[in-house]
């Protein structure tokens, strides 16, 4: 791997290597001295065009635990179009010898653009781009799910896949980079993914995804999922007529106390409730659900550092088991006409 841009083009082998490496990194986090010298002298830039304190500090902690030098570069999205361009920013970082750029950007595809442009040699890590992907979030979710799945099976986590697991993702899939990254990664790891949400918040074209789609949350819960992942709802979506009111949304697609009790009634003792945070308590998830023993919210945060350590480590230390050295030679990244006629009609 040269970059980590999406989970859609992440092979199962690379995904498992990331998760297994993250297990080793997690062990470091349990030591008294939570630091490895692996990336000493390397520079990681956190390039955030969008506010996200949670993701930024998670990457910062990950880089520091690997002894990398960290530069935080906060740039507001509006300055991109009006002031310095992404190209100039990238070339500035290149001139400062950045080894890795962790980029959060409101425009879908900005990390891919950065990686393919030739403006910069650094490894690019997508820390969330628009409504496209958020691969490290999906990796930490998969890591959390895998630990849970291995624990109930009595197996060690490392090497385990998600085969046999049923994961339900609920809410605003249309605008969710977390949902997209999870759909690809969890299915790559063998899980079965179900989606539930209002039809207005499921993308046109979702029919081609490797998922089953439900418009009714209770119908989806009747499929007895092993995990329910609630997506954050942005209340302003209501203004664009995606749904009539937050109360109606909450009743139909919120994980409320009634649905929490339903899991018990159905005997789904091992079903966990996930949320990428930050949560809207009382909207897409009730406080009782968020704080219940089923909730993995805090474990997800904790695991985020381990997963991001693994990503930075594998990208920057030259992974000897790399199986896709040529990922950046893909036709869609360098020269769309080099090998494949895809996108052109013969």
């Amino acid at each position: 791997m040269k970059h980590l841009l999406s989970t859609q083009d992440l092979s199962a082998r690379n995904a498992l290597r990331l998760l297994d490496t993250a297990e080793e990194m997690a062990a470091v986090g349990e030591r008294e001295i939570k630091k490895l010298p692996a990336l000493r002298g390397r520079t990681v830039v956190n390039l955030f065009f969008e506010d996200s304190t949670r993701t930024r500090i998670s990457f910062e902690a990950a880089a520091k635990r690997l002894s990398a030098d960290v530069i935080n570069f906060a740039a507001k999205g509006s300055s991109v179009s009006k002031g310095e361009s992404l190209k100039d920013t990238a070339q500035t970082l290149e001139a400062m010898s950045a080894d890795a750029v962790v980029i959060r950007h409101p425009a879908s595809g900005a990390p891919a653009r950065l990686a393919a442009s030739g403006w910069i040699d650094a490894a690019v890590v997508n820390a969330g781009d628009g409504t496209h992907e958020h691969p490290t979030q999906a990796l930490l979710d998969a890591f959390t799910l895998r630990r849970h799945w291995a624990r109930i099976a009595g197996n060690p986590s490392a090497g385990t896949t998600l085969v046999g697991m049923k994961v339900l993702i609920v809410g605003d899939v249309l605008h969710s980079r977390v949902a997209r990254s999870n759909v690809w990664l969890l299915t790559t790891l063998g899980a079965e993914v179900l989606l539930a949400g209002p039809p207005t918040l499921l993308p046109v074209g979702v029919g081609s995804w490797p998922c089953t789609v439900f418009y009714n949350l209770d119908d989806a819960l009747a499929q007895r999922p092993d995990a329910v992942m609630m997506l954050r709802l942005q209340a302003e979506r209501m203004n664009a007529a995606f749904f009539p009111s937050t109360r109606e949304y909450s009743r139909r697609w919120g994980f409320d106390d009634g649905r929490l009790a339903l899991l018990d009634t159905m005997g789904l003792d091992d079903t966990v409730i996930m949320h990428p945070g930050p949560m809207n308590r009382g909207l897409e998830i009730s406080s009782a659900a968020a704080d219940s023993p089923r909730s993995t919210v805090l474990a997800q945060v904790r695991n985020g550092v381990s997963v991001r350590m693994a990503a930075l480590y594998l990208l920057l230390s030259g992974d000897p088991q790399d199986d896709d050295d040529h990922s950046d030679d893909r036709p869609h990244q360098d020269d769309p006409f080099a090998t494949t006629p895809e996108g052109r009609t013969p």
Partner: protein
Amino acid sequence: MSPDTTTDRAVDPAQYLIRGVSPLGGEATDLLVRGGVIAASGPDAASGAAADAVTIEADGLVALPGMVDLHTHLREPGREDAETVETGSRAAALGGFTAIHAMANSSPVADTAGVVEQVYRLGLASGWVEVRPVGAVTVGLAGERLAELGAMAESRASVRVFSDDGICVHDPVLMRRALEYVKAFDGVIAQHAQEPRLTEGAQMNEGEVSAVLGLTGWPAVAEESIIARDVLLAQHVGSRLHVCHVSTAGSVEIIRWAKARGIDVTAEVTPHHLLLTDELVRSYDPVYKVNPPLRTSDDVHALRAALADGTIDVVGTDHAPHPSEHKECEWAQAAMGMTGLETALSVVQHTMVETGLLDWAGFARVTSVTPARIGRLDHQGRPLAVGEPANLILVDPAARWTVDPTTMATKGRNSPFRGLELPGRVRATFFEGHPTVLDGHLSTPRRGQVPATAVDGEDAAWNI
């Protein structure tokens, strides 16, 4: 005033004997170009040629009427960093065009007689092709009140095509009035069919690819619903409607239905919509960002079939050059548009001729004859016959070339065909009897079209 015709202009004094050329791909013959017209053909050509006639050996070349583009963005006035009338018309000549229609979305907008005359004059002064300004339908393309369509029609530019291209005339009352009003001077409204509310923030075709990429979808229905409304309006008021850059299979069905009902509608497709699909957007490379967006393979096949069967009447390039900084950025920030003048012939040959969907006569119909008729250009798109104006091109259909935007005459480097090998090269372009392109290279512009005093006076007026 009447449109300028060849009779107003000075004529190239030289004679050109084109030997062994295949008109419309037919039997090889000779053509003699003299005095701005095709003066002789067959054995008469050589025997009628003067001793100092320039001979062009054209074995294996196809003669076609000069291409006529109904849809070109020349960017001047206002964005001369992107393109000028001079650079855009050079690109057009190299691409095999003898007439282009300059879209109205310049700055200032071509919504007055003054601006359209300026563009028209710049075209005459350049002399590479005939430049016909398109007039805006509404003042400032704002969609609120009609521009002075009559004044533009009666100006020296003799505007016949009116369009707010880039923006849809979405107010149904305004569209109805525009359709009705231009009947007074045989004008046509060229509609950019894009329902604005359905395309707020839209970035790419809405479908399987947009779902994966997380780019805001641009539904086909936004185009189709406007076309459906407009053909019904055109029928109701008995007017002529032209639909710009049709991009979806559904639009084709609506236009087919409208034509079957006898509605006076014509439609256009771009070369890029005949070849490229939204799969290319997976790269997030903004060179593939265009309005209307690249659609699916099914749409591409429907567009080709429609162009072959006449449901779609013409190819229009929608040549839209942009400075590189408008494309070297994130997808969402990037400008929409692609260059097309210098690749149009090759892309249409590749997608329509080499697939057997069109012969060269059909190619001439969709790239020259019908666009000239829609634009009311009497001396363009004419038969390759004795006595006709010598607006013609010589094409080597066997040539193969690889698209390199850095070597193009347009200022725009935003060609989506970059790196692609395409068939067909323009070897020569004759613009009213004068070769603007010879041996595949720019020759000289056609001289002496404009009375010097008029240019001076106009210069003084717009240089203040």
